[in-house]
């Protein structure tokens, strides 16, 4: 099974890299761009065959390592 994890900054947490991307996009002439937020995408193979158990495992990985929940949110997708 494959799992994908998106890690993003929580609302209200300043994202200076997102801001810099926004400014550069404006500089390239893209109009109407706002509220650019950048994050991380993590993909992994998982031996577990049960979808619920696989999700639980990945959730534990997020809490213990993949995300810092002081500033970050995460979403998990399990693909069979």
């Amino acid at each position, binding site marked *: 099974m494959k799992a994908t994890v998106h890690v993003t900054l929580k609302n209200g*947490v*300043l994202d*200076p*890299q997102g801001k810099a991307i926004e400014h550069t996009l404006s500089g390239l002439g893209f109009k109407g761009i706002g509220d650019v937020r950048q994050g*991380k995408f993590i993909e992994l193979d998982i031996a577990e065959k049960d979808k619920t158990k696989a999700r639980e495992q990945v959730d534990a990985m997020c809490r213990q*390592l993949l995300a*810092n929940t*002081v*500033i970050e949110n995460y979403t998990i997708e399990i693909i069979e």
Partner: protein
Amino acid sequence: MKACVIVFPASNCDRDMQVALERSTGKKVDMVWHRESDLSGYDLVAVPGGFSYGDYLRCGAMAARSPIMGAIKKHADRGGLLLGVCNGFQILTEAGLLPGVLMRNANLKFVCRDVELTVERNDTAFASGYTKGQKIRIPVAHHDGNYFTDDETLKRIEGNGQVAFRYVDNPNGSLNSIAGVYNERGNVLGLMPHPERLVDAQLGGTDGLPMFDALAKGAA
């Protein structure tokens, strides 16, 4: 006073820390590889600066999950002194031993220069060599030193007097200009500036020296 410095892959201020501690304590300071798992018998454990694991994922994230961290937590729990500088501060926040998180500098620039700090309190084992409100000059060298935490935690650490040092002129966007914090008990300190780099007049100043002298005296 028995002290050691933890070494991770890509620590790079470990030797400076050892020199500073040996100078003040007059005793040999051990270097402990991150794969070790026992720190019993040490009065002071220092987690040095650097770029452990290449800052992969988040600064300090990998190091905070390495085998030595169990022993570091045990050391802090039994009241041992624990000092984290720069990457060491990031590692201690990632490990949950100190509140908050160090984010990318607000201006996105690597800041490498001397900064002025205010000593917020001097009733701790780390800061008893300074006076409260004293201004000291210590170098910073980091890309991710922007101290952040949620409002509730910020209120709590301010209320508890857990702020150790504040920048006079905030170089990185840190909330409330926070440069260093203590844990609630006051035996764990993390700070972004590098006091170990200023312990010899020939290297540009000695404003870091009182911290190591105080630690040597306090944990004698």
